[in-house]
C-alpha cells in the first residue's frame, strides 16, 4: 500500500507490502532509509535545515527540520528493529531556482546540513539525486529497498 509522507512529516514501517512515497520535492529533501536484514523502512520529507529557526515548531513537528527530523527518522526505525550498521541511506531533492547569486539557497543549505549530520554520525549515503531545478517524487518499496525517483515523466532507480 502507498503510504504518503507529507511535507514536514516522516513515516516508518516494517510491513513489506508498504511503499513509502513523497511527492513534489522542491528545495526540500526526502531521506529514505532501509534495513535489508529486518526489512524496515522509513522516509522523511524535511523542509528546512535548522530547528533553531523555530524551536517550538520543531517540538511540535520535528520532521520539519533536518537537525531534528533525521535523528527522529533513525530512532523510529530502531524502534522497529533496524540497526544503524545495516541501514542503507538514499536522498533526493534540494532543488534550486535559476539563481546565480544564491539568494534563495534553501535547497543547498538543506543538503549541507544533511551531509554534516551524516558525517558526524559516520553514516554513508548510498545514493543521491540532489540539486538542479527539478521537482522530484520519490518512492521506497519496503519489500526490497528499491528507491525510485520520478521527474519530468521518467522514473529512475537510485
Amino acid at each position: 500500500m502507498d503510504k504518503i509522507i507529507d511535507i514536514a512529516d516522516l513515516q516508518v514501517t516494517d510491513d513489506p507490502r508498504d511503499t513509502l512515497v513523497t511527492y513534489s520535492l522542491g528545495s526540500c529533501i526526502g531521506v529514505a532509509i532501509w534495513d535489508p536484514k529486518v526489512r524496515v523502512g522509513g522516509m522523511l520529507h524535511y523542509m528546512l535545515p535548522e530547528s533553531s529557526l523555530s524551536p517550538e515548531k520543531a517540538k511540535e513537528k520535528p520532521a520539519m527540520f533536518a537537525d531534528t527530523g533525521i535523528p527522529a527518522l533513525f530512532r523510529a526505525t530502531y524502534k522497529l528493529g533496524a540497526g544503524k550498521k545495516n541501514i542503507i541511506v538514499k536522498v533526493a531533492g534540494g532543488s534550486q531556482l535559476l539563481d546565480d547569486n544564491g539568494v534563495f539557497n534553501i535547497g543547498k543549505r538543506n543538503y549541507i546540513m544533511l551531509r554534516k549530520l551524516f558525517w558526524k554520525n559516520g553514516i554513508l549515503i548510498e545514493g543521491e539525486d540532489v540539486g538542479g531545478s527539478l521537482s522530484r517524487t520519490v518512492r521506497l518499496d519496503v519489500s526490497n529497498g528499491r528507491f525510485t525517483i520520478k521527474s519530468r515523466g521518467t522514473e529512475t532507480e537510485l
Partner: protein
Amino acid sequence: MNSLQDIVDRVSAIQPLPDTALKLMEVMGDPTSTLDNIVDTIKYDQAVTSQVLKLCNSSFFGLSRKVTSLNDAMLCLGTIKVLQLVMSIHTNNMLASEQKGYGLEPGVLWKHSVAVALASSLFAQRLSLPNADLAFTAGLLHDIGKVILNEYVAQEFARIIHKVTEDHMAFVEAERHVLGFSHVEVGGMIAEKWKLPDAIVQCIRFHHVPSELNPPESLVDTVYLANTVCLLMGIGLGEDGLSYRADPQVLERRGLGEHDLELIGIQTIIELQRVEQLFDRTAEKKPVAQ
C-alpha cells in the same frame, strides 16, 4: 493553432468570474469599506452565502454555536478569513481541474494557488502593506493563465523543456520562445477580460520578473516572494519545477532576509493544511472540467 488570435478567442470564451467576486474585490480594495459593505456584497449571492455558512459550521472551526448569518460569520472568523473563503470558493472550479501540459494532477494548481495566496497575505502583513486584502486574491490568480495555456504547452512540451534543459531558459521564457506567449501574458489577458483591478493584472504579468517594473510595486514583490517560497517548498509543483529565475533585488529592497522567507514558509504550510482539511471535509471534491 498556436496563434495569438486563437488565444485571444479562448480568453474571450472563458467563463466570467462571478459578479460577487468582482464587487468583493472592489470593496476589499477600498480602505473606507465597512463590515456592512462587505456583507451587502456577498449576501445577494445565495450559493456563496450558503457555502460560507456551511464551511463556518463545519466541525473544522469548532465553533461552540451555530453561525446563521454572514454578519455572524464575520464576527466569529474575522472579515479577512471570510473574504478569503469566498474567493477560494469562486476559483475552486476553474483552478482545480487537471493541467496536463504542466504535469499538474487534479487539484494541484488550486493547492499551489491557495498556498501562494496565503503566503502573499503573510508577506503583505509582514511588510505592513495597505492593500493586504488584495494580496490574497492576487496570489490566488497569479497562475490563472496556465488554465488556458495548458493545452498549448502540452502540444509543445518537448520543445519547451528542451529550451529549459539545454539552453538554460526559465520555463516562462521557453514558453514565450516556443509558443510566442507565456502563461503570464495570457493570465494578464484573462484578468483584463474579467476587469480585475490594475494592481492584480500587474501582479499576474510580473510575478516572475518583479524588478522589470519601474518603479517596483510592493504588491508585485509580495506575490513574487510568495510564489518563490511555495516553489521552494514544493507546494503544487508541476513539470516546470523550479525552473524560474531568482530576482535578487526583491529581498534587498523589501528589507527581508532568508529567515523571513523560512518563517513565512512554515506559516504557509500550516495554514494550507488547515484550508485543505476544510475544503476536503466540506466542499465538493470533484474537479470541474473547463
